Each structure stands twice: as structure tokens, then as C-alpha cells.
């Protein structure tokens, strides 16, 4: 079998790209940090490496997935963004998370906008949802800024969360 190419997306400041082994130290640090608590963390080094590998495998099995977000100039790992659809998910989700040192610079906004537009244009993923923990005020604010609207309360993997629906490409235009 051949593993598919994960598309590369460039924005003003960022590159969205496939995970590589060099990302592992930053990903391991992320999963040891509090920021990871919203996305299944904390995880130990083994859990972080399995997650990195699974991010690639998700693209292979689903044809879409999450990108790693890197700084266009320094190549530093800043976080991840993209589509997730695993057992327990009602439909493909647009998710995001950024490391602590990347917060407060509009990086998640820039990355998520790019991923959302790519999904709508190329992956047949338009008007998707985001699952957000009601205590995650940063992500709730970002969802609002992205003009996603609250749809319902639900549970994801046993954790209460809200479903927010993104505008379709047409609605956003």
C-alpha cells in the first residue's frame, strides 16, 4: 500500500504540514503541558509518540486529518489543527490546539481558518462542527471569532462538551 501525501498549506505566518519525527520533542512537551488537557492529555512520551503516529494514520484511513502548525520562518512547532473523526465522534470535527508559547497571537485563528477553507474546498468537509469543553473559554472565544454557532450540548469520550457549527464556505463568503 502507498501512504497518501498530506497536503501542505501556507498562510501569512504559518505552514500546515504533515507530522515528522523532528516534531516529537515539541509534541511530547505539549502533551506534558496543561494546554493538552483539552485534547486528551496529559500523555507521557509514549502516548505523545503514538498520537503523532496516529495523526498520520488518520489521514490514511479517513482521507483527511490534522495538520501540524509550524512557524513559517523558524519552523517551530506551534500546535495542530484539522479534522478528526474517530469512534465516539458523531461527524468529522474541526479541532485546534496550540502550545502555550504560541498563544495570544492569533495563530489558532489563522491556522483554523486555513484548515476550514481547505476542508470545504478540497475534502468535502463543509459546515463542520467543533467539540468544545464548556470550561475552555479560549476555544469558545475562538469559535465565536470564527462565526461558529452553538448547536447543542453533548458528551465526547465521557466528557461533557458543546457542539459548535461552522458556517459553510458559501455562508462565510
Amino acid at each position, binding site marked *: *500500500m*502507498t*501512504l*497518501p*501525501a*498530506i497536503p501542505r498549506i501556507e498562510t501569512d505566518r504559518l505552514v500546515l504540514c*504533515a*507530522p*515528522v*519525527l523532528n516534531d*516529537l520533542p515539541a509534541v*511530547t512537551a505539549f502533551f506534558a503541558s496543561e494546554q493538552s488537557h483539552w485534547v486528551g492529555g496529559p500523555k*507521557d*512520551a*509514549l502516548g*505523545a*509518540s*503514538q*498520537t*503523532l*503516529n*496516529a*495523526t*498520520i*494514520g*488518520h489521514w*490514511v*484511513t479517513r482521507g483527511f486529518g490534522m495538520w501540524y502548525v509550524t512557524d513559517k520562518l523558524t519552523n517551530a512547532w506551534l500546535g495542530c489543527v484539522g479534522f478528526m473523526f*474517530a*469512534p*465516539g465522534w458523531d461527524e468529522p470535527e474541526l479541532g485546534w490546539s496550540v502550545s502555550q508559547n504560541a498563544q495570544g497571537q492569533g495563530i489558532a485563528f489563522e491556522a483554523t481558518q486555513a484548515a476550514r477553507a481547505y476542508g470545504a474546498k478540497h475534502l468535502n468537509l463543509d459546515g463542520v462542527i467543533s467539540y468544545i469543553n464548556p470550561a475552555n473559554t479560549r476555544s469558545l472565544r475562538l469559535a465565536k471569532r470564527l462565526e461558529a454557532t452553538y448547536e447543542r450540548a453533548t458528551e465526547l*469520550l465521557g466528557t461533557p462538551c458543546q457542539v459548535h457549527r461552522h458556517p459553510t464556505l458559501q455562508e462565510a463568503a
Partner: protein
Amino acid sequence: MLDFAIPVLETQRLILRGPEAEDYPDFKATFASYRSRFMGGPLNEYEAWMLYAAEIGHWNIRGYGMWMIHDRETDETLGMAGGWFPAKWPEREIAWIIWPDKAGHGYALEATHAARNYFYNQCGWEGAVSYIDPKNLDSIRLAERLGAQKDKEAATIDGSDAVYRHPSPDSLTGSQLEHGIEMEIAHYADPLFKPKGWAID
């Protein structure tokens, strides 16, 4: 960077191919069962799916990984075997798992022997280990049939596993051990000593 083809290995009874999305139900069934207790299981649906995705991504990140073992004739899956090297693993591991209802036919021996030969002859590995739960007697016996020996000095993953060190390529190639492995596989494929037309009395 990703367009990468997972090699296909063929043996007398088996074809080893990269894990495909369609093979997932067989994987999930085994990892939901008690059979997976020595491989970090049993896992719930989400965990099993993510592990399967990680098995695929491992190929991309390391350039090697776990193959899905298929029956040559029926194409059904029988288990997995190959190389495994996630974070916290002290050394590259040769690993295997056979679905519970496919055990006892020498499939793990045949698949693992082929995988190890591939790593030694095509990837330039100078050796490998297998990390085995000391209670996993079937796997310990397989490691020993493959010529691996318990290495009490070697670093373990977390202290609860035993390290079995595989023979080096030099000590394996052309050895009596290699002939023995191949003879055992041949006997599984065609049991020479099974009585045929034996008198019933």
C-alpha cells in the same frame, strides 16, 4: 514527503502487507479481547482505532512497522508482525500478535522470520529485541524458537517486561538455527509426519 510504499513480503503460506483501513475490524476484535492483555489491551473502541492509526503512521515516521499477516489463499487476516519503535522503547523491537482463533499454526513464526530477514537483509539492522511480558509464555516460546535469548542486562521499557535479544544477522545466516526455523515452518505448511491412511485400530 509521504508517498511511501509499504513493502509486501511473501512466504510459503502468507502475504505480509501494510495495514489497510478494511483490515481494521479484525484488529479491533482482537484488541477488544483478553488476547491483547500483553499488548496494552484490552482497549475500548476509541483506543483501538487510535492504536491502529498509530500502527500505520509508524511506517511513515520510522520507515518500517507492523505488517498485516494475510493467508495467501483466502487473503483473510491472521495477525500482525514486524518492527515497532515508539518513544520510550530502548531499542527497535520485533513484535507479533496472532488473532486468538488463528493461533497454533505457526503463522507468527513464519511471519516474524520473514520480517526479521527483511530488516536484516534489506534495512541493515544489526539486531533487534522483543519486549515480552514474563507471563506471556506463548510469546516467550516463540522468541526462543526464533533463537532469541533473554538478555538480563538490557534496558526494559518499564521494568515489567523481559528483553529477548534476537541473534545477529551474522550468527543467523546459514546457521543450524535458521535451518531449524525453516524446517519447522515447512512442517507447519506440509506436516510430513502426520500419518496418512494410517490403520485405525
